[in-house]
């Protein structure tokens, strides 16, 4: 055996020499040093990557990831190279004839290769460590450098070397080996990725490997198993290569031992793979079983917990919990269902000191009280249980693909954090209500009945005895009457409580009777020293921040404590369909992930540095250091203001792009609403969310999201709601990203009539006052609707009938808004009028809003606030909406269809020039004839006209074209036109600024050789002199660069054909008005048809095809072109599109 190792060592030593001296390796080394050096500099010094500053293990993690991919590729070549070399050179034979065995020889060769890479890795990691120490100082995680080397570098290299050696020995062709293994790497890296629970992720690119400084890896056991799979497979393949090695073995018998060893390793590796996958499958199965159990017991009698007092003792990683509960049956019965984390062992359940019979079905506890309990009869009983939680109970409502989807860290490439929903170890415990760490009445998530999801306010108390030296955190005032035992008494009733125990330190401050605190893990205080110099002003700043939020949400903060609690990096939360609150938001506290790594706003030092740099460069006004600190402090918490976060831009097919958005887990709104109010409904569990979203209307990013996605989420939701009922859509997990929008639209449907009758502001105030009078109480949705309905004199239950079937949406044609100035005897009046027609068979409401010049200052100063009201339309009804204004006239008409077929759903129309008039129309809404929307002598053909508007076929043909067509069918018809990435084929988009009636759309295409065309065929009513207009909405490059590009010609090329004549017309876009009809020319047309063709030949990046208008001058007379014209009027043409005709 000693000789075995001696020989292996000898061969390895000399193989290493060869490798180190080879040019290939030298080049790789230089590239690796330069690449990783630059990368490290970028991360540690240039960018000062915030997540790495917070979680120092990220640096060695990402460093090793990059290195291991590079060396995996190089090692394929090198591993096959020595076999090729052996094959080519007789010289190898002088070694083959030595007494060393095949195993010694091949293992020596492989070890020789591996050890060079290992040594190189360690050397580079050493350099990385030095850089890390210089950049991060004491925060550097020294051990991680070794840990990631062992977890990432070693298994990857052993596997890839084993694989390439084996393939090389079987196919005996280095080039082919290289192609196969490289292809395999590419396939797993770019295609397979994290499929099958990361099973094929031998490079470790997707499997979460972030190490929290608080709790380490998210799932070390699973990670180790995963890495061992590839280490074992690599060893197995090496054994097979020894067997297959083309040199006569020393002993025939011993040779056959190697496939046995190989099989052993491979079987072991495969077993690891199976157990890895089965772990996930088991989790899925258990979760399915839990949901099935919930479905089975969802209608069992339930209790409302009136009060609950916990006595909790930490015993190592275990918890011993006693919960004294006072409950009241919601309906009478003797057996009541509770839900408790299945990881806990129930030691006893007693009532008045006597054991109570109970049945445990995984997470469900069916307690048989032995007698019939009447509704609202108080029953006291005690739960005693112990053990550790089982995380599999968490998020049963979240689709599996979302649960296993890995969490990437924004701003730090490649790394994944892993997801944990709870933690329970000797030195750290984090239990949120999602874990069901305490018995809660009823069942958990049921996919068949919303009955499961009832939340009630309970009076909680908690006594916690943590392990020595650790600090417990929960809701309520904390006291330590007995050393080592802490009591928590919340001021109000709460819907849920959480428990956190860890090595926490705390800084706190009382401001206006509210205790603000930061509870951080010992050693993680990176902020105190930064703000030391402005500590006196911190209370005032906190007061301002609180006011900012309260003003923004129009709600006040209801608790007497507010704290940031630092939790491990892997703590993951999901948005839910029924609440805005994610688990990271608990009553009175925000669970902030490790040092706030996911919020750049909390990088105080980085922000201050940036502010100072900006000041030096003149981007910011000069400020003192104290002012910068104060401003940084105030702005740092703004991340809690946005409903959405993590915008993900994704480039799609053929120039399309999309923007995905995630809900912000730190959105602070729930502290002011969800934890304070509880609107419940047995039939509509989304009741609370519905009211919550109604209060937040206007707090969304719909407009700029639609600029990228082509449709707003509300519009997408409306398209779906025409197909399926709201009730059905709520249960369809594949559309869960639009759930908020379904609910939002439904809230518009529900409250539109009430708002119309009471006025928008009064309705909102009434709703709020009802909700507010039920603070920290349970408020029935039905009671709320009934009360509101009485106030508004309408039946608010009626719109809910629409939720049970696909929505029937109104469709509006919008006339041109007009503002006129009228002099009366008493005063001058500005008269704003607009005609709107509901052309559908269904009634509807729309929100009509007028903005004034001074409206933009109205939030801060005395400006005139925008005026808004709701207008009702019967089917086929046309209304003229008139309003009178004295001091200012409206400059912008904002029409929001609320729930309509119109695209865009919300349109902003400029009022245009104020003209003088003598006709005073009475204020209000009057039903008028639809003739008000028609213009005599004008014919408009829009791109929406399926008969009169045609596009040329896409330039590609054959299979590719077919495939593209097929792949495009999945998307919505409308997308967004990105000027920096114009589409390769005609692509439809909607926008406020395009021409259209109910759908304002246009087609855009990348400019080219002119082979792509859009053609409008205009049926003329009469022959004669016509002015031909094109509706021009300039491409963004001209809109954004109005002056810079003027020297270059920017033209569209049209061809007009009529009665055998053909005429080319060039439209100079630089000289044309934007968002208006521009004249192409005046023609004496003696035929009944005119065709206008726009080609994609242009100096611009994109050509947009919108609408063409023919105006018969003989009929309307010559008239000056209006400089700015609002959206045109019209009616449907023969093709279902829009043709405007004046008779």
């Amino acid at each position, binding site marked *: 055996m000693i000789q075995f190792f*001696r020989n292996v060592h000898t061969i390895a030593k000399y193989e290493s020499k060869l490798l180190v001296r080879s040019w290939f390796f030298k080049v790789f080394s230089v590239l690796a040093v330069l690449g990783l050096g630059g990368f490290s500099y970028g991360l540690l010094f240039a960018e000062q990557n915030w997540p790495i500053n917070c979680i120092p293990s990220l640096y060695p993690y990402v460093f090793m990831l990059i290195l291991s991919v590079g060396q995996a590729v190089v090692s394929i070549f090198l591993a096959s190279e020595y076999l090729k070399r052996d094959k080519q050179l007789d010289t190898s*034979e002088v070694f083959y004839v030595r007494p060393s065995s095949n195993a010694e020889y091949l293992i020596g060769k492989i070890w020789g290769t591996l050890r060079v890479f290992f040594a190189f890795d360690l050397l580079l990691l050493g350099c990385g460590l030095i850089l890390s120490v210089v950049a991060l100082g004491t925060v550097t995680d020294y051990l991680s450098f070794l840990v990631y080397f062992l977890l990432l570098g070693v298994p990857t290299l052993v596997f890839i070397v084993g694989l390439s050696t084996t393939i090389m020995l079987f196919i005996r062709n280095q080039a082919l080996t290289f192609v196969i293994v490289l292809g395999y790497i590419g396939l797993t890296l770019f295609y397979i990725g994290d499929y099958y629970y990361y099973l094929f992720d031998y490079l470790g690119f997707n499997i979460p490997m972030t190490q929290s400084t608080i709790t380490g890896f998210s799932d070390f056991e699973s990670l180790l198993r995963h890495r061992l799979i590839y280490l074992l497979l690599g060893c197995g393949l090496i054994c097979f290569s020894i067997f297959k090695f083309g040199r006569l073995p020393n002993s025939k018998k011993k040779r056959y031992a190697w496939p046995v060893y190989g099989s052993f390793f491979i079987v072991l590796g495969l077993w690891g793979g199976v157990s890895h996958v089965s772990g996930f499958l088991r989790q899925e199965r258990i979760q399915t079983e839990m949901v099935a159990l919930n479905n089975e017991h969802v209608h069992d009698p339930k209790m409302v917990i009136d009060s609950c007092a916990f006595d909790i003792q930490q015993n190592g990683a275990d918890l011993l919990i006693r919960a004294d509960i006072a409950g009241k049956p919601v309906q009478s019965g003797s057996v009541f269902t509770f839900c408790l984390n299945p990881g806990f062992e129930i030691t006893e359940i007693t009532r008045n000191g006597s054991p109570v019979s109970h049945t445990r079905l995984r997470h469900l506890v069916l307690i048989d009280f032995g007698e019939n309990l009447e509704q609202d009869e108080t029953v006291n009983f005690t739960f005693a249980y112990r053990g550790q939680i089982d995380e599999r109970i968490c998020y049963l409502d979240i689709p599996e693909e979302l649960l296993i989807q890995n969490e990437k860290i924004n701003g730090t490439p490649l790394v994944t954090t892993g997801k944990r929903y709870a933690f329970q170890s000797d030195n750290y415990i984090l239990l949120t209500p999602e874990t069901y760490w305490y018995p809660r009445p009823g069942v958990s998530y049921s996919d068949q009945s919303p009955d499961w999801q009832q939340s009630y306010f309970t009076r909680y108390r908690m006594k916690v005895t943590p392990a020595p030296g650790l600090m417990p955190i929960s809701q309520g005032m904390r006291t330590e009457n007995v050393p080592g035992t802490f009591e928590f008494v919340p001021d109000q009733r709460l819907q849920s409580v959480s428990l956190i125990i860890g090595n926490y330190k705390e800084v706190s401050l009382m401001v206006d009777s509210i205790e603000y605190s930061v509870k951080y893990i010992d050693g993680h205080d990176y902020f105190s020293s930064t703000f030391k110099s402005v500590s006196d002003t911190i209370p005032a700043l906190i007061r301002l921040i609180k006011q900012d939020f309260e003003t923004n949400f129009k709600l006040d903060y209801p608790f007497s404590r507010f704290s940031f609690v630092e939790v491990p990096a892997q703590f993951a939360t999901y948005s839910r369909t029924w609440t805005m609150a994610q688990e990271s938001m608990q009553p009175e506290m925000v669970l902030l992930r490790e040092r706030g790594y996911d919020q750049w706003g909390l990088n105080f030092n980085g922000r201050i540095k940036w502010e100072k740099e900006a000041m030096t460069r003149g981007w910011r006004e000069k400020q003192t250091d104290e002012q910068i600190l104060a401003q940084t402090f105030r702005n740092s918490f703004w991340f809690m203001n946005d409903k959405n976060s993590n915008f993900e831009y994704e480039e799609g097919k053929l120039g399309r792009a999309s923007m995905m958005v995630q809900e912000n887990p730190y959105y602070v709104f729930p502290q002011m609403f969800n934890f304070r109010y509880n609107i419940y409904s047995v039939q509509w569990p989304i009741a609370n969310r519905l009211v919550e979203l109604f209060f937040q209307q206007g707090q969304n990013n719909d407009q700029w999201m639609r600029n990228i996605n082509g449709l707003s989420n509300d519009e997408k939701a409306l398209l779906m709601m025409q197909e399926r009922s709201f009730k059905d859509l709520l249960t369809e997990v594949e559309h869960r990203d639009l759930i908020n929008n379904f609910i939002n639209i439904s809230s518009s449907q529900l409250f539109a009539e009430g708002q119309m009758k009471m006025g928008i502001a009064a309705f909102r105030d009434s709703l709020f006052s009802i909700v507010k009078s039920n603070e920290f109480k349970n408020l029935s949705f039905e009671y709320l609707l009934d009360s509101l309905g009485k106030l508004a004199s309408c039946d608010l239950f009626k719109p809910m009938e629409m939720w049970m079937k696909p929505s029937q949406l109104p469709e509006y044609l919008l006339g041109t808004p007009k503002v006129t100035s009228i002099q009366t005897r008493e005063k001058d009046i500005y008269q704003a009028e607009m005609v709107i027609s509901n052309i559908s068979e269904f009634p509807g409401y729309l929100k009509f809003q007028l903005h004034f010049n001074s409206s933009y200052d109205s939030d801060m100063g005395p400006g005139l606030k925008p005026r808004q009201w709701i207008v009702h339309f019967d089917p086929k009804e046309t209304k003229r909406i008139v309003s009178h204004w004295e001091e200012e006239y409206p400059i912008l008409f904002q029409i929001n269809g609320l729930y309509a077929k119109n695209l865009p759903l919300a349109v902003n129309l400029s009022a245009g020039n104020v003209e003088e008039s003598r006709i005073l129309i009475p204020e209000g809404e009057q039903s008028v004839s639809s003739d008000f929307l028609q213009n005599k002598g004008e014919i408009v053909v829009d791109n929406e006209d399926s008969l009169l508007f045609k596009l040329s076929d896409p330039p590609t043909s054959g299979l590719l074209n077919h495939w593209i067509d097929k792949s495009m069918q999945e998307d919505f018809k409308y997308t967004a036109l990105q000027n920096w990435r114009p589409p390769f084929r005609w692509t439809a988009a909607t926008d406020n600024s395009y021409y259209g009636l109910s759908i304002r759309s246009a087609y855009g295409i990348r400019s080219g050789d002119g082979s792509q065309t859009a053609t409008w065929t205009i049926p003329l009513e009469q022959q004669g002199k016509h002015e031909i207009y094109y509706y021009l909405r300039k491409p963004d490059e001209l809109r954004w660069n109005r002056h810079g590009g003027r020297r270059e010609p920017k033209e569209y090329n049209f061809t007009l054909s009529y009665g055998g004549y053909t005429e080319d017309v060039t439209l100079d876009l630089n000289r044309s008005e934007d968002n208006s009809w521009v004249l192409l020319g005046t023609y004496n047309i003696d035929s009944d048809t005119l065709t206008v063709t726009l080609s994609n030949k242009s100096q611009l990046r994109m050509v947009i095809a919108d609408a063409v208008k023919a105006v018969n001058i003989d009929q309307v007379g010559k008239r000056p072109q209006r400089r700015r014209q609002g959206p045109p009027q019209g009616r449907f043409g023969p093709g279902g599109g829009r043709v405007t005709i004046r008779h």
Partner: protein
Amino acid sequence: MSIVIKDLNKIYPNGHHALKNLNLTIPSGMFGLLGPNGAGKSTLMRILVALMEPSSGEVEVYGYNLLRERKEVRRILGYLPQDFRFFAKYKVQEFLDYAARLSGMNNGRLRRKAVGDMLEQVGLYEVRERYASKLSGGMKRRLGIAQALIHQPKVIIVDEPTTGLDPEERIRFRNLLSQISANDTTIILSTHIVGDISSSCTDMALLNRGELSFNGSPEEMLKRAEGKVWRLRVTDEQYREINEKYPVIATIPCGMEWDIQVVADKLEGYDNAVNYPPNLEHAYVYFMESKLNLWLND
């Protein structure tokens, strides 16, 4: 006897019968293995150095069965292949050290001494730090023999060792082999250069088409060829006639005629032909020719 070969056969997967029932005994000392290209020399060598498995037959090397006791055989074996190039990135000393280590010379001090001595012996000590790729052809060949000898093997197999060497290097190399063979070592020298054998081998075998044509000492082989080599002077026409019937092994122009040497049992019709004392090359031709005739007659 150091090596005993019994009924050795090698049939390649393509059906080529490279060795046919070869029986041969190789004593210690320098043993020459002679034969034309394709005779099976290299196959035999590769079998002897355990790089190739025979199809059937037995080989015993110093009492070890080559098929069953390869490790033991490899331990006493040194091998210098014909096309001996180097891993360009090894230094002379490293290469030799590598070979020594793999041959079981574990004691570092002794190994370093052995390497130094061997480099002295083959005249490469001065260039020990030079990369092997920078050596001349002769130096490379000497380094080749050095690696084959470094662990003092009992059997050394060298394949075409002098091909491509200049005369001085060739003589030097032969002398080196002769010195080594004096130490009770078996050296099998496979070559098609007859001169290598005549000047150094005490025993030899002649292989042709996988069969043993001759086994014995070079002198014995010469003896067999005595009276079979003729020298005569011929005209152009006669030359053409003779050349068609017999192998002509030397041709010297002599005015309008040719002075030639011919290998033949009898040379009838040429009275001026006189017997000429054969050398090993003549003998080799004689053997090859007579075997060829036998096959043709078969």
